[in-house]
């Protein structure tokens, strides 16, 4: 399933859950694991200083410094690396999303793993925004699925027996469906739950729909699911489908909990790309932050492949 996995690491506790998943996956699929650490964000105008993302210090980044950071990364992941026989470490300077995408463009991985923003206050609000926008921007432009982990994943790949596919009927959603099906089909006994959350909008605006309208829409969505997805299951039998109404990220997290999902696959929605709203967090970000299982984002670019 995966031969080359790119893991964007922060080599800090913030990325620990993601690291576990990345190492676990690489081991299970005998994949090459590419640890990409964006160690500094350029600052100070045109100067050669960058802010070390872990220490917050202003440093001049040269080959010595990079080599030193590489050692630090090896020490940090010493235990996991011992068991990992095929990996490489890449240290670079720049804006995290851009450098991860640059590395992905060069190496063409089939999965990118990123740590998500966490709800705990371990980092500053600023860091949360950076993590949030990195996820958004990488998910938007990557040419492969992006696996996002922000809470300790209860079970890992291979132990996966339940995949939830969050459908939204977009082009990207078609690609996400294909990917979810592929994952479920590759694991014996795995279930696939197709789910759509109907956004009924803010309840207090006075624009809320009548119950009848809601039920009509639900019927419509079920029809669409049958036509778009169920019809394309090609003999895969262990599936279910459901449509709930409400606030999409709340509903999908609830649904995933009910189905004891090990993985959620969602389409990346371009509507979410808005630097200002990134502060509040997109629908996807909310799901990542709240769900107990990892989330895989698939974007429209993958619909072409």
């Amino acid at each position, binding site marked *: 399933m995966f031969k080359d996995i790119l893991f964007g690491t922060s080599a800090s506790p913030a990325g620990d859950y993601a690291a576990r998943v990345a190492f676990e996956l690489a081991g299970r699929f005998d994949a090459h694991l590419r640890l990409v650490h964006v160690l500094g964000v350029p*600052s100070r105008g045109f100067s*050669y*200083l960058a802010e070390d993302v872990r220490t917050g210090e202003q440093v001049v980044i040269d080959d010595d410094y990079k080599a030193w950071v590489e050692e630090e990364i090896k020490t940090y992941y010493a235990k996991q690396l011992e068991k990992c026989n095929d990996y490489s470490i890449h240290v670079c300077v720049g804006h995290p999303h851009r450098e991860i995408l640059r590395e992905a463009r060069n190496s063409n991985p089939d999965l990118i793993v990123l740590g998500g923003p966490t709800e705990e206050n371990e980092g500053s609000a600023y860091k949360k925004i950076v993590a949030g926008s990195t996820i958004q921007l990488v998910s938007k432009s990557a040419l492969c699925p992006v696996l996002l982990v922000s809470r300790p994943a209860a079970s890992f790949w291979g132990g996966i027996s339940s995949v939830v596919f969050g459908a939204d009927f977009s082009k990207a959603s078609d690609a996400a469906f294909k990917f979810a099906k592929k994952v479920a089909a590759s694991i014996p006994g795995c279930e696939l739950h197709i789910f759509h959350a109907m956004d009924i909008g803010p309840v207090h605006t006075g624009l809320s729909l009548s119950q009848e309208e809601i039920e009509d829409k639900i019927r419509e969505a079920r029809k669409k699911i049958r036509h778009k997805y169920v019809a394309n299951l090609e003999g895969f039998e262990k599936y279910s489908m459901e449509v709930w109404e409400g606030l999409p990220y709340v509903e999908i997290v609830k649904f995933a909990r009910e189905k004891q999902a090990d993985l959620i696959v969602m389409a990346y929605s371009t509507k979410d790309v808005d630097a200002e709203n990134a502060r509040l967090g997109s629908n996807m970000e909310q799901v990542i932050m709240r769900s107990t299982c990892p989330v895989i984002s698939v974007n429209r670019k993958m619909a072409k492949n």
Partner: protein
Amino acid sequence: MPEGTLCNKQTVDTKEYLNALLADKSGKQYYSEMEKLDVDTDKLWKSIKSTLRSRLRTWLEICAHCGMCADACFLYLANDRDPTQVPSYKIQSTLGEIVKRKGKVNNEFMRMVMDTAWSKCTCCCRCGSFCPFGIDMGIMFGYLRGLCFSQGFVPWELKIGSGMHRVYKAQMDVTVEDWVDTCEWMAEEYEDDWPGLAIPVDKENADIMYTVNAREPKHYPEDIAEAAILFHMAGENWTVPSKGWEETSLAMFAGDWGACKMQVEEVYGAMHRLKPKRMVVTECGHAYRATVIEGPYWAGLKDGRPPVESIHYVEWVAEALRTGKIKIDPAKKIKEPVTYQDSCNYIRNAGLKNVAREIMSYIAEDFREMTPNREHNFCCGGGGGFNGMGRYREQRNVGLKVKLDQILDTGAKLVISPCHNCWDAIRDMEEVYHAGIRWSFLKPLLIKMAIPPDHLKVEE
């Protein structure tokens, strides 16, 4: 004559020298070598005699020490009206003294001159408009920086910066291959959202040749994609040159006139090669000044103008909005209070103040002017290379206060800043003073507000 291996009177013309400078963390060895660097007083005096034009000489002589320029200088204001920050004092105690002593100055004096020229003046040229004689310290300090550079007294980052221009013909180590590849990459990355999006390289006879700041390909190539999207939306016939794409000039901040000439001739070379109707410069103030205003003189062009008509990005934007090539969705105009940072380099020194206001009238519902504004606006606090020099970080941070107060007084939290330097300074302002402000170039805002033509609409 003790010349250091890093700090000396040589220009940086090889990768080896450049890398050796870069490897010297924060310029430690460089600055310690500088303490022993000899001043070639004969050469200094000779060069003054042949290059100090009569205008500057007269300025030095006629200054009446009236002090009217004092309040004009943001650094004087930011430093609690420190008398050593009065513009006339700053120049008289440096350039004035060197001339008086006929170039007979020592190492210690030159280091003081360097610190003054780079940490007490951003060459914003504001004082000149308040002096009854029109004496402009920005121009005088620019000249003085050149003298310092030729003697090897130049801040470490700017020695590197000018070397980058000499070696890479760009302010950062971005090669022609890197640049062209980045253009391809950005077109690929965004073509799903904007059908038909392309970044045409080296197309001849285009209407527009677009040039950028090396930081864009290096660190935020999105900016190039955004420029492409807007040109695409407007239906422009445009191109970027594979060679001669870098518009900026750290060499100008450094006072390395040789490198300034080299850099600008790259761009003019691209104009001759591709024969575009016009050139558009990205949202960068000093780049415009370097290539459009000063460049022709460096390159020895008799009519004082670049080979093809050259305009700043804000001029293109105003034109595109005025002619309806880009249409703004009225519902998406900026509703919150918003202010505009007038960059000295194209507002005060190139008269583009009205163009900036015109743009704001199309895109903002609650535009708040800073006070003072337009040609009287204060420097953002990071001009002339001030942002990037570690040695003067503290002084720079103090200098930011004037602009910060100006911004806060408008009540706006969003600052539009179509200049890389000002943008950086405002970003740093937030980092240092936590005032809760945001900053943006024009491009991303315009893309959000524009109504895409029908053929560019994409289904979800």
